[in-house]
């Protein structure tokens, strides 16, 4: 295996770490070991699912995160929540005006912090315990954090069900009695129960039907306005991400390759991967589709166990330069206006 370097980072990306930063990720890495052997397991390599991410999330904003399957979006979300212990890096979270590193927290301290950071999962079918009633599912975070108990908790559950647009009568039902969209609402209610500041939404709409997706997106937006929430919104649907996000990060094979304001990103994408991604999104209008120029990428996404040397995108990049892109790792840098790109061929000042 060629020696692989993770992505070199500019000092900070996104907003400069200022007072309004809620979450700040520094050099985040998550490797999954590949092992062999039945009884005694040998370490034979690593899946570099997330390889050196740095970005900030401001209080009250929605940061969209897009990229193809397997590029490390969910792993990033889970590593932020410490559901996977990061291999390296810091996850700083603002607590009483101070930035604390979640990676260094353990046991009870970490469990207490979980009250402030919640997650909504991709699969509304698998993320609810099939043997618990909806009431108990939503009440659980309240109870474990000692916020409310018994009858008071049940009342709060009914209130939450109303907030997410479900009938409060449903407390005693089991998850299988609901449709996908309704289950996703239950997942949202569970995340909201403890009044968190920050919610990682991991593809909350991907498993839902088109007509239901809009319901859930609207719900998330309403709740954000109502409770002053901050979101990391993970999705592979570029249209939905544009709708809901303030800023957007594009991931490819464990890296963030581009990060910019929503409008900048969609109007003026700089990274060749972002350009291809945007041009591949079909537009529901036959007249436009007939005229559109597509950038069709060739080949498949390489395996994160053996990422290509140099720029990880060079194997599929339509403009890659031999001798540069396949050798040298591009720096993830600000090319103006807080528009961050990791590409050799984007000049400084392009932002």
């Amino acid at each position: 295996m060629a020696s692989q370097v993770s992505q070199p980072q500019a000092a900070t990306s996104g907003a400069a770490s200022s007072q309004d930063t809620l979450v700040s990720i520094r050099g985040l890495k998550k490797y999954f070991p590949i092992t062999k052997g039945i009884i005694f397991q040998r370490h034979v390599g690593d899946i570099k699912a997330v390889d050196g991410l740095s970005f900030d999330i401001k209080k009250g904003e929605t940061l969209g995160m897009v990229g193809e399957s397997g590029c490390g979006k969910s792993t990033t979300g889970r590593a932020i929540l410490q559901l996977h212990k990061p291999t390296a890096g810091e996850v700083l979270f603002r607590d009483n005006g101070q930035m604390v590193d979640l990676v260094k927290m353990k046991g009870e301290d970490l469990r207490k912090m979980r009250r402030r950071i919640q997650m909504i999962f991709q699969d509304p079918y698998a993320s609810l315990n099939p043997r618990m009633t909806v009431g108990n599912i939503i009440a659980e975070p309240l109870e474990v954090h000692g916020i409310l108990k018994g009858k008071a908790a049940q009342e709060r559950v009914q209130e939450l069900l109303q907030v997410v647009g479900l009938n409060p009568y449903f407390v005693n039902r089991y998850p299988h009695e609901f449709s996908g969209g309704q289950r996703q609402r239950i997942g949202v209610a569970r995340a909201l129960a403890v009044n968190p500041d920050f919610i990682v939404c991991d593809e909350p709409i991907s498993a839902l039907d088109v007509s239901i997706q809009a319901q859930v997106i609207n719900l998330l937006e309403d709740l954000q306005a109502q409770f002053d929430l901050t979101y990391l919104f993970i999705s592979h649907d570029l249209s939905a991400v544009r709708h809901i996000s303030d800023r957007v990060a594009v991931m490819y094979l464990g890296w963030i390759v581009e990060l910019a304001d929503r409008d900048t990103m969609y109007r003026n994408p700089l990274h060749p991967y972002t350009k291809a991604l945007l041009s591949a999104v079909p537009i529901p209008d036959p007249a436009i589709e007939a005229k559109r120029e597509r950038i069709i990428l060739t080949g498949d996404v390489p395996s994160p166990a053996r990422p290509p040397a140099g720029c990880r995108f060079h194997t599929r990049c339509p403009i890659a330069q031999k001798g540069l892109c396949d050798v040298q790792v591009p720096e993830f840098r600000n090319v103006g206006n807080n528009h961050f790109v990791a590409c050799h061929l984007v000049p400084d000042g392009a932002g």
Partner: protein
Amino acid sequence: MAVAQGVRPTGQGAWVPQATSRRSRFIDGWRRFSRHKLAVLGLFIVGAWIVCGLFAPWIAPYSYRENNLAVSQQLPSAEHWLGTDRLGRDQLSRLIWAARTALIVAPFAVTVSFALGLIFGSLAGYLGGWVEGIIMRVADVLLAFPGLLFALLLSVTLKPRLVSMMEASSVLKDLVRSGYAELIIVILALSVVGWPGLARLVRAQVLSSKNSLYIEAARASGVNTWRVIRQHILPNILAPIIVVLSMSLGGAVVAESGLSFLGLGVEPPIPSWGNMIYENASNGLWRTANAPYLVWAPGAIVSLLVFAFSFIGDGLNEALNPQIGEGSR
């Protein structure tokens, strides 16, 4: 319930709102169980077995051990509903007392093997790595032997030693005299062969439950490990385990009879359905006395219990699964 259940569980079902009253897990479960008619029948059969076993001295019309050669080899009559054997013992009474034997052996054997299976299975599932490797390889080896044969071997090799050990102790001496010492050995033998299958099941359940998204969701909302196990993992792995538990009770009854039939389990005069078959069949009594029921009655009881337990298993499977629809439309 009106979720349209299509081919794919991910289908967006349509549902009709209905008022809900507070639901008890137990009542819900019983409703699902009782819809299964055979399971209810099974429950009655098992209930009868337990009653016979517990109250044998009061239910059985005669003693199981006293010989009465005056009434040897009688056909069924008003006094002796199922007739008597060569030693003049009332067959019905012996069948009833044999229920007690099975009632002592089966739950014990199953409890011990379940305890072993649960412990080893969950250790393997949780810890993974080399612990899992070793436990599961041992289980594989044990599973490769025919179970009954292995119990047999153990029983043969251990029995003399255990019996002499017990006789040396003042407390256990009485147990040996009462004839129930054999039972303990049978229990041990059955437990040793019983746990690997269960350990496998438990491990698989723990693994799939441990990696499921709702466990991750619970951890993400700050639930601690102990509560994750109690609230999320246990209820989800318990159902299949309880079902298997029910089935293996039936299996243990058969195994006890089998060992006793081969003379390696419970020995006369203590009656067991197995040794009754053996006694009555081997001395040719059932043919000369023209009383085939002396052999098939104990056999039929054992079969009946096995069926009963498997029906109950089916019923429990439904009862413990809230995803099985309630009530018909």
